[in-house]
């Protein structure tokens, strides 16, 4: 079989990459300053120089089977050194967006990435849908003075307004839909990446023995983001290090997720608990940590001084703001349950929080959020097929 491709640029693909954030892609002249600046690029697997060229030539299939775009954490080191301002970091981001939109069967992701209006529309449709769905079973707002401050009786009223069981049912349905949606993307990615050929035209080997270590590698990486930490030559305060900021958002979010899940599992829905109840403390702390990360990310994007914060797309903003709104309304709800008087404002915040949380989840496979799954998967596949680097005696070798 002929091992070479009959190349012909896929102009539609190029247009997509340009539109998804890689607008300076054509400027690249292959000097490889980016690859030498990248602390994650290795001799065996160099990027993003090669991905720039493949994107310029519209080599869609080769890029979709390549895990490299997912190995990039968008620290922006490459774009900083690019002599032609070709934005390799932005192209890598665009390639990830392309992959997410490609793996989304509904086509909504593509619409959201390519158009701000489309993004808002999708959001509004989902929000309206969830609002109507939730309100369809509402139990009415109970007003008046009914308890002392910190009694926690507020949650009883809130869950009378929107029944907890109903929220739970909707949640299950949403998770099922996410699962189905992601399953398609995951299978596509696995199929493509496992059919990847190396430069000699041979298919990569995926030895069974290497599977478990690869999964371990990917999970550990997802937990500590060790590679992200290698990324940037960060010069500012340690509290502003992108790795830490990302970690705050991720761990804060996870803490809230766990608190919510445990809350549901170990106590009756809507039952009152005092503020020092462990799940409550975990959720509040997680919310505050997450809010810290989000506020740094947002202020950096507002000042937009340097990569990776200077070229935020609408979809980036959307995801950040959606997450921030979900966390904020969640924290506010946490305060409202301890207020002495239920108010219309309190009920509205509670409703918004549930709608936003549902939005966040249902749109997970369509937004930046999807990287949680795809990056981890790509890392595992990359590690699985990775040929062990020859042992060198160089003391300075950092690529362990």
């Amino acid at each position, binding site marked *: 079989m002929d091992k*070479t491709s009959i190349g*012909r640029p896929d102009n539609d693909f190029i247009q997509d990459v340009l539109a998804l954030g890689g607008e300076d892609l*054509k400027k690249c002249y292959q000097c490889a300053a980016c690859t030498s600046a990248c602390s994650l690029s290795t001799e065996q697997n160099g990027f993003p120089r090669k991905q720039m060229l493949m994107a310029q030539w519209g080599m869609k299939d080769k890029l979709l089977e390549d895990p490299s775009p997912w190995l990039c954490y968008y620290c922006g080191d490459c774009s900083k050194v690019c002599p032609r301002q070709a934005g390799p970091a932005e192209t890598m981001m665009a390639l990830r967006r392309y992959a997410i939109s490609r793996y989304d069967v509904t086509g909504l992701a593509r619409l959201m990435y390519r158009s701000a209006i489309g993004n808002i529309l999708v959001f509004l449709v989902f929000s309206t849908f969830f609002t109507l769905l939730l309100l369809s079973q509402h139990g009415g707002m109970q007003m008046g003075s009914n308890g002392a401050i910190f009694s926690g009786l507020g949650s009883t009223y809130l869950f009378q307004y929107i029944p907890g069981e109903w929220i739970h049912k909707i949640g299950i349905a949403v998770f099922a839909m996410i699962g189905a949606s992601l399953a398609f993307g995951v299978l596509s990615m696995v199929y493509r990446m496992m059919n990847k050929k190396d*430069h000699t*035209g041979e298919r990569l080997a995926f030895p069974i023995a290497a599977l478990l270590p690869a999964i371990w590698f990917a999970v550990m990486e997802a937990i500590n983001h060790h590679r992200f930490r290698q990324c940037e030559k960060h010069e500012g305060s340690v509290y502003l290090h992108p790795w830490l900021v990302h970690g705050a958002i991720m761990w804060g979010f996870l803490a809230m997720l766990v608190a919510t899940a445990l809350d549901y599992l170990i106590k009756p829905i809507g039952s009152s608990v005092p503020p020092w109840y462990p799940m409550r403390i975990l959720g509040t702390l997680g919310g505050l940590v997450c809010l810290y990360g989000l506020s740094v990310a947002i202020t950096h994007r507002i000042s937009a001084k340097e990569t990776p914060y200077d070229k935020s797309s609408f979809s980036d903003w959307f995801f950040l703001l959606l997450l921030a709104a979900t966390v904020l309304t969640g924290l506010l709800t946490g305060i409202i349950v301890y207020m002495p008087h239920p108010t219309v404002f309190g009920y509205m915040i509670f409703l918004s929080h549930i709608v936003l949380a549902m939005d966040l989840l249902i749109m997970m496979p369509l937004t930046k959020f999807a990287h949680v799954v795809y990056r981890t998967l790509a890392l595992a596949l990359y590690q699985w097929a990775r040929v062990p680097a020859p042992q060198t005696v160089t003391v300075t070798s950092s690529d362990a």
Partner: protein
Amino acid sequence: MDKKLGVYICSGCEIGEKIAMDGLVRVAEKESKAPVCRTHPFLCGPEGTALIRQDLESGAVNTLVIAACSTRDKTDAFSFDPRMVMERVDLRERVAWSHPAGEEDTQALAEDYLRMGIAKAGKMEPLEPMTGEVSKAILVVGGGIAGLTAALEAAKAGYEVVLVEKSERLGGSLAEVKRPTPLKAPYTASPTNDAQERTRLVMEHPRIQVFTTTTILRTEGQPGQFDVTLATSSQQVTVRVGAIVMATGWKPYDPARLNELGYGSSANVVTNLEAERMAVEGRIRRPSDKKPPQRTLFIQCAGSRRGDHLPYCSSVCCMATLQQAEYLHEADPNAEVYVIYQDMMTPGPYEKFYQKVQEHPRSFFMKGEVTSVGPRPDGQVRVRVEHTLANGPFEIDVDLVVLATGMVPNAADSEAIRSLHDAQAKVLRNESEKQRTEAEAVVASLRQHENTEILHLAYRQGPDLPVLRHGFPDSNFICFPYESQRTGIYAAGAVRSPMDWAGAEEDATGAAMKAIQSVELASLGAAVHPRAGDLSFPFFNLQRCTQCKRCTVECPFGAIDEDEKGTPKFNPYRCRRCGVCMGACPERIISFKNYSVDMIASMIKAVEVPEEEEEKPRILLFACENDAVPALDMAGMERTQLDASVRVIPLRCLGSMNMVWIADALSSGFDGVMLAGCKHGDDYQCHFVRGSELAGRRLDNVKETLQRLQLESERIEMVEAAFDDYRRLPQLINDFAGRIRALDPNPYKGF
């Protein structure tokens, strides 16, 4: 004329602190019986030079020895009548700045240098410049952009110009392209093609005479007196000119040799020149069916930068490709253009144009190597690209392939033609069977040079400019652009080096200036670059000539022709005064009035060589005036210490070294002789092209001399030193001196 010697010794710049002045005065007054000897603490100052002028004006002296700083310094202060005998002795860089004060050896060194200078001045004679009728007209060969510019620039400067063009129209390759390359910021838009306007300016200029459809039949004579016979379509005309600018341009690399890139295998594989022609005629089309191509692939460096083809980069093909890509995009914005390159060469601001074309949505650039180009049944061409920067090789089907071919100079290889002519003459003479078959083999190997003459020079060394590497008739492009190895003939434009129109324009202006300098200096009887203004020239004492032809063969500038018997016929205006002929002559019959075998021999003999028992060796260093001497001067400025046994004699060129000097030095008791010349070989740095190479070859023969004298061969050494070797050269000299000190003294001391 009786010589009245005046010796002027400067004691400034540390000279007085390091050297006892009375010792020097004793050498001048007592030993050399100089009627006038003066010392001054600031000889180059107004008071010091006034001292000299007074003595000259009063008639007390007519021959000067100035013992002060390097001959390269204070030339304006010590500038008197250039014809007068004047010798400068370097006591500053060579002694005071490179040796310790108050030492016996330092004093002996200074006194030796003064003796040497006085000895040379004693042999020198006043110069008598050449006088002759000199034409200041300039012949420009070639009517392309370089030729048009050279003609116009020379005419604007007031010189008569004769412009000769082989074809029927002027404008050269510029007239054959759709658009020139962008020349102004922001370098993204091409100017209009002004070839017609340039042609009109030249045609209408009152001082420019234009001959089209004309070739050169013969060029006789020398700078200032070239008689050039032109063959027009109807008649023969002879014009007299003073200098020649050769701007014969370039031709494309023969695409027939590019079968490996599909040329000839498919009609849809064309060269960049063919594509340009289509663009000029309308738009670039696929030759097979005249349809505009949807997909065009350019192969850069087609037949360039490879050992089996042109080994060099022509520097213009990348821009040509970018422009043609733009033509294609203008004609059809959706037409795809692929460029497969080794390196995109878009020098200087042309990078901006590259960026512009690259950002077009239908431009695709890839570094890689095209390994096969083959026709497809549907008229398409399949191109395979390997060693790409993407993932592995790929193949692509395109409508049209354009080969970006490089430039070949329109020059003739003078030396090859000369060898061919000699061999052909031998075949005709048919003196012996063996000789004839040998000559026939030479003729066969050089057949491609037959009838390639351009200038048809009536020179002993061949009918055209000698070529350097890759067939370009350049003398040395680092130091002296436009200079060729034929005095008064300057190469400009793409014949000199691959270049575009902007480069050719600049080049032609420079070459016109060199041509003007040449005729102006010829009218003064003076040498051109690099010894610009030198009034001396060699005399040939032909009674003693043995017709060995060494001078006619070795002259780097073809200045010496020969008659039927082989007697040299010297053309003084072609001469650059390097003295290579003087060094070559075994009979020592060639000398300048201020530079001769005898003068240098007297300098050698003027050195006081200590007795053997004193254990003070003496080493002679012949140093090239153009590189080794300035390097030593700079070493002096850095106060680098030199071995006190070394006596330096500057030579015009190491090629002017006559082997008899080495014998003289050894028989005078010198313990070692060192030669410091320029780098030779392909990347030579010699001002006179072959000086150090010739000296090296002659030195091989010295081994016999040493054997005859029963001396060690280590006593003689030759080194290559460049202008900037001011740290390395003193080290080499001191190391050599150390090795000589380790040897027994020269047994000929005291004979």
